[in-house]
C-alpha cells in the first residue's frame, strides 16, 4: 500500500508536468485550431535554456525565468515564421509544419549540446517520511512551481484583457474580429503563453529526470492524450486529465513495467477517441 501511495505521489508530479504540456497543446488548439507537435520540443528548449541560465546566473529561479523567456520567444518566432503563413490552410498542414518546427528545435539542440544527458546540479536532500511514505522536498517544489504556473495562466486567461480576448477568439474568431479584436495581437500573446508554459513543463521535467534533446518529443504522446482526455481546447480539462494520466501511468508501473507505462497514454488516447471524443470536459463541437 505504501509503495502504491509513493507511486501515486510520483504520478501526481509527472501528471502536473503532463498537465502543463497538455495545457500548452490545448491553448494552441483552442485558438489556432491545430495540434502543435512542436510543444514537446519547446519543452526541451525550455529545459536547456533553464540549464544554461542557471549555470550562467547561479540561480535556478533566474535560470527558470530565462527558460520561460526562451520558450515564449520560440513560440512567437515559430508563429511569425511558419504558422502565421498557414493560418488559412488546413489544420493538417499546420500539424505537419509543427512536426518540422519540432524537428528543427530538436536537431538544433542536439547540434549545440550533443545527445548526451545533462542534469540540474541541485543539492541532495533527504526525503521526508510522512506516515511511512517517502516524499522528496524537490517534488513539493516542482508541484508548487507547476501550480503557480497554472494559477498564472488561469489568471491571465480570466482576469486580463488579453486573456479575455484569447477566450473570445477561441469561441468565435469572426465575432472577435467584428468586436474590434485584432487577431495578430491575440495570436502573438497566445504563442508566447503556450511557449512559456511548455518551457516550464520542460524545466520541471528536466529537474525531475534528465535533460536530453528527445525528452520533450517523448512527452508529446502523454500531452496529446491528456489534451484529448480533458476535452480538446479546454484548459482546466487538460490539467485535470494530465494529473489523472500521470497517476495512472505511475501506479500501473508494477504491472506493465517502466518501459510500457507510456503505452497507457496511447490506450487512453484510443479509448477516449472511440468512446467519448469530446473528452471529460469538452463540448460536442470540441473547441471551447
Amino acid at each position, binding site marked *: 500500500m505504501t509503495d502504491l501511495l509513493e507511486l501515486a505521489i510520483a504520478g501526481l508530479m509527472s501528471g502536473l508536468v503532463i498537465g502543463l504540456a497538455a495545457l500548452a497543446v490545448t491553448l494552441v488548439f483552442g485558438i489556432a485550431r491545430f495540434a502543435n507537435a512542436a510543444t514537446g520540443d519547446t519543452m526541451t528548449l525550455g529545459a536547456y535554456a533553464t540549464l544554461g541560465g542557471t549555470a550562467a546566473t547561479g540561480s535556478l529561479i533566474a535560470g527558470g525565468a530565462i527558460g520561460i523567456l526562451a520558450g515564449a520567444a520560440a513560440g512567437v518566432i515559430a508563429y511569425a515564421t511558419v504558422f502565421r503563413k498557414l493560418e488559412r490552410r488546413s489544420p493538417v498542414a499546420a500539424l505537419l509544419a509543427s512536426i518540422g518546427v519540432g524537428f528543427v528545435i530538436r536537431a538544433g539542440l542536439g547540434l549545440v549540446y550533443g545527445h548526451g544527458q545533462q542534469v540540474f546540479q541541485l543539492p541532495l536532500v533527504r526525503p521526508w517520511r510522512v506516515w511511512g511514505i517517502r516524499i522528496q522536498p524537490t517534488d513539493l517544489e516542482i508541484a508548487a512551481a507547476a501550480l503557480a504556473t497554472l494559477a498564472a495562466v488561469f489568471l491571465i486567461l480570466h482576469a486580463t*484583457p488579453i486573456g*479575455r*480576448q484569447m*477566450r*473570445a477568439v*477561441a*469561441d*468565435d474568431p*469572426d*465575432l*472577435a*474580429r*467584428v*468586436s*474590434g*479584436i*485584432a*487577431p495578430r495581437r491575440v495570436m502573438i500573446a497566445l504563442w508566447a503563453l503556450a511557449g512559456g508554459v511548455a518551457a516550464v513543463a520542460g524545466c520541471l521535467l528536466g529537474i525531475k529526470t534528465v535533460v536530453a534533446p528527445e525528452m520533450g518529443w517523448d512527452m508529446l504522446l502523454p500531452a496529446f492524450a491528456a489534451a484529448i482526455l480533458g476535452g480538446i481546447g479546454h484548459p482546466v480539462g487538460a490539467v485535470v486529465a494530465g494529473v489523472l494520466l500521470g497517476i495512472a501511468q505511475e501506479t500501473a508501473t508494477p504491472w506493465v513495467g517502466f518501459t510500457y507505462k507510456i503505452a497507457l497514454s496511447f490506450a487512453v488516447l484510443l479509448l477516449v477517441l472511440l468512446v467519448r471524443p469530446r473528452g471529460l470536459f469538452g463540448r460536442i463541437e470540441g473547441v*471551447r
Partner: protein
Amino acid sequence: MILSLEAVTGGYGEVDILNGIDLALEAGSILTVAGTNGAGKSTLAKAVVGLLPRVGGRIRLDGRDIVGLPAEERARAGIGYVPQVANVFPSLTIEENLAVVEGVADRRGRIGALLAMFPALAERRRFRAQSLSGGERQQLAFARALMTAPRVMVLDEPTAALAPSRVAESFERIATLARTGIAVLLIEQRARQALAISHRGAILDGGKVALAGPAADLLADETAARLFLGAG
C-alpha cells in the same frame, strides 16, 4: 450618406455571390435588404463588416473607402454587426462579452449604460452567455455591437432565432436604434414587418439589386409583393 456601396462584387473562392450592388444609407435611417434564400443578403452583410474574403467595388463609410480595411478596424471605425447565428461568445460571461470589445473609450461607463438599457442582462451579468435564451442572446448581441457606439449597425436576420412573441419587440428595438441616429442595414426574411419600420428597402435577386426604393413604395408594389415579400 454615411454608408454607400458602389458596384460591390464578391464571394468565397472563385464564384461571385454579389454581382454589382449599389446601395446607400443615411444616418438615422433603416434600409431593409430582403430577397429569397441564396440572393446574397448575408454575403452583403459580411462584405460591409469585412468578413467576406473577396470584395470588389467600393464601400464608403463617411466617404472613406473601407474595402481594404480589416474587420476589426471597420468595427473600431463605427460599424457594428449582429450576425444571424453565433452572435455572442458562449464561454464568456455577459459582462465579459461586453468588456472584450475593443475600441471603446469609456469601457466601464459604456457597460453600465448598456446593462441599464437591457435589465434582463444586468441581472445575469456574471452568467455565461451559453446559459441565455434566444431572446436574451439577441439582447446581448445588440449590446455587444453597441459597445463601440457605432454609426452604422448591420443586422443579419435579427428575428430569425426568436420566438414569434419576441419579433415585434425586436423590430421596436431596431426602430429605436435608428431614432438615436444610428444608420441600420437590416437583412431580414420577415420583409413586410421589416419594411414597415424602414425608410428604404432593397430586394436582392441573384446577387443584384432587383428592386429598390422607399419602403412604403416597395410594400405597395404588387410585383415585389408577389415575388419577394411573401405573406410575412
